[in-house]
Every structure is written in C-alpha cells, then in structure tokens.
C-alpha cells in the first residue's frame, strides 16, 4: 500500500485541527503499563491490535484484575506480558505453559492467560502445549500466529506456509506447516477457536468466552508480520495482509478441525471450532483421590474454589 494513495487533499488538510485533545484518556490505556509505551512492535504489526482486543475483553469481563495473570514466553508476542498492567510472567523460551501450570495449581482462584507466539508455543514449547491440553488445565492460551519467528530474524516456523521464503529457507519452505486448531483438538483442548486480526469484535467475544470456559481454551489469531514475513515474500504491508484476511476468511463455526489448515489457495476458515465439556485436571484429581482415599483426602481447588 502506498500512503499517497489515501492521503487527504490539500484543500481538506487546511480544515483539519490536530491539536484537539480528547475529553477522556483512551480507556484501553488503563489496562496497560503506560510507562512502557510506545511498544516495540513494528508499524503494521497486528499484535498491538490483539492487545487492544484483550484489554477490552478484560474490561468488559468484569473480573477483579488482581485475579488475572498473564504469562508469556519469548518472542514478539512474548512482550505482551510486559505491557499488560496485570500480574505477569515473562518466562523462558517455550516454557510459558509450564509456568502458567504452576501458577494455576498454586493458586486455583487465578485466571491464567498465556499470551505467546506460534514459534514459542508450537516449536520449542510444543510438548508442553500437548500435555496441558491433554490434562485440560483451566487456562486460556492466546496464540498470535504470524507465520515466522519475528524477533530473531524471520527463521522458518512450524506454521510457515509451503513455498514461502524465509531467512533459513531462501529457496522456499518445503516443510508442511502445522494445523494448530487440529493439534489442539486432537490433544484434547475443550475450547478451540481461530480468528484473524481483522475480526476484532469476534476476538473480544472469543477471549471472554475462553476465560469463562472451564478447561483448556485455545485461540489462534492470525496476524501480519510486515517486516519479516510479508516483506520477504513480497506480500505488501501489514494492512494489505489484514485486507487479505478480510476478503479470504470464511466463517465456519463447529468446522471439523482437520479441514481448517492454512494453505496458499484455500480460504481461511475462522470461527469457534470446538466447545466441549471435560473434567479439568484439578477436578479429575480430586475425584480420583476422593474415590481412593475417602475422608482422608481434602479436595483442593477445582469447582469449589473460593474466589
């Protein structure tokens, strides 16, 4: 996109007054550590929009912010924990889910949100993701999928589409990418959704649903990486990619997760794919130990947690 194509005309520019100040501060800023802003994300990156949606989901969810914690791994999306004005954990690469598991089990009253990228959650942290989903730990995983390792220089990620060029795949990627909702579904996640950065209202609703949902909730958010992925593949600017998401996404709630893989030609399937009830890890543990030990066991956490 060329900025001059959508530029104001000279005549209109004279009437524009940019010195006006809003009567109130942007309410989203109350959820952020304002001393850390402006953030490090590139112009056209979608992570800021995801944080904007997450802030509004938190504000409208009515939770006590002392009971919400954000855990992030390493990477561009891993910076989110540092910008949210909540209790937050910036952990080692790929280990955001183990940290979040410990946090959730040590304090079962806590709402734990893991905010991390595709490389962090599915490459180095893939095993942790599988086992947290299998155990149905009660937490929300927000995975911002930008198809590459943004922070380290555009290496090929487990989500990079076939034939696209990356710094470690200069002649085109030949490794088939992972279908993230299918992996989550197969591992036993009880809430699986996919949205793109274009779907802001649906994203806010999905984040609220995921936080309220009892069990392992997974939301994949497709986001442009203008500096490394789009520029290297000559796909335009960030806004061009979001326009592509707008034009090529198809809503299919309850779609079979086998059929939602991202390819170069098929439309992007978005929606809430899986919503199922399964006992969470704490509930299963309490049920099993109560059945075995009877009165000698005092149930911990789970459904009867004191808020």
């Amino acid at each position, binding site marked *: *996109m060329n*900025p*001059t194509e*959508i*530029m*104001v*005309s*000279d005549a*209109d*520019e004279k009437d*524009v007054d*940019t010195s*006006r*100040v*809003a*009567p*109130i501060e*942007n309410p*989203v*800023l109350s959820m*952020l550590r304002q001393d850390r*802003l*402006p*953030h490090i*994300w*590139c*112009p*056209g*990156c*979608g*992570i*800021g*929009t995801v*944080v*904007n*949606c997450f802030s*509004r989901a938190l504000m409208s969810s009515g939770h006590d912010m002392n009971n919400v914690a954000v855990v992030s791994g390493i990477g561009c999306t891993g910076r989110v924990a540092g910008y949210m004005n909540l209790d937050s954990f910036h952990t080692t690469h790929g280990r955001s889910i183990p940290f979040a598991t410990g946090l959730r089990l040590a304090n079962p009253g806590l709402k734990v949100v893991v905010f991390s990228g595709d490389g962090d959650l599915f490459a180095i942290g893939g095993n942790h993701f599988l086992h947290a989903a299998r155990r149905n730990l009660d937490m929300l995983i927000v995975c911002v999928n930008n198809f590459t390792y943004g922070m380290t220089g555009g290496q090929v990620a487990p989500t990079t589409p076939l034939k696209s060029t990356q710094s470690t795949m200069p002649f085109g990627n030949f490794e088939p990418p992972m279908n993230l909702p299918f992996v989550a579904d197969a591992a036993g996640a009880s809430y699986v959704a996919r949205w793109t950065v*274009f779907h*802001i*209202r649906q994203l806010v609703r999905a984040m609220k649903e995921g936080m309220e949902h009892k069990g392992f909730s997974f939301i994949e958010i497709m986001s442009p990486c203008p500096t490394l992925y789009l520029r290297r593949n000559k796909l335009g*600017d*960030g*806004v061009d990619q*979001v*326009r592509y998401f*707008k034009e090529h996404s198809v809503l299919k709630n309850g779609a079979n997760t086998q059929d939602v893989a991202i390819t170069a030609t098929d439309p992007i399937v978005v929606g809430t794919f899986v919503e199922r009830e399964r006992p969470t890890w704490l509930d299963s543990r309490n049920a099993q130990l109560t059945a075995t030990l009877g009165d000698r066991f005092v149930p911990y956490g789970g459904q009867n947690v004191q808020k």
Partner: protein
Amino acid sequence: MVSDSPGKRVGKGTVFVKVEVCKGCAYCIEFCPADCLRFSRNYNAKGYHYPVLAKPELCVGCNTCGQYCPDFAIMGMRYKDIDALEATKSAVNDDDRSGAEAPGRKS
C-alpha cells in the same frame, strides 16, 4: 482542555488522534466503516504520516478505528457522549466552587 468547539460540529461524532504516538499502519483508514479518515500530508516526529478526519461529516464516532489501532493513538467518540462527559465535568466544577470549605482542601 477544550476538546472541540460545538459551532464547528458536523456529523455525529469525531476522532481524536495522538499524532506523536501514531506509526502510520493505516488500519484505521482501511477499516473505517464510514471511510472518513485519510493520511495527513504532514509527518510526525517519528517520520510517519498520521490519520486525519478528512470527511468529518461522515464520522459517527463508532470507535472502530480505536479498536483496530495497535498503538492506541486514535479514539472515536460520539458528540452526545462528549457532551455528557463535559456536563458531568462542569457539574463537578460547580460543586467545587459552591462548597468553599471542601474537605481536604486548604487555601
């Protein structure tokens, strides 16, 4: 902190842009439902073109731009919300003046 002068109002709402925070990603311009924003011809201190309200008569203050903005630089507001805010603000100020011996305030 005068937000806007009611005499100049056209349309149902307006946007407020923090010019120096903007990174010129054009999300607000692209996804404005009323198509009323355009890039300014000027640059901010970081060297980006920032959005301006080019067609104020079309703006309804829906804040879709503010919901997309990755840098929290733009915010749309409806005039009736602005008026309600200004009314509560001036009411608070009137109360302050009437209560000369307001608690916790000396001088």
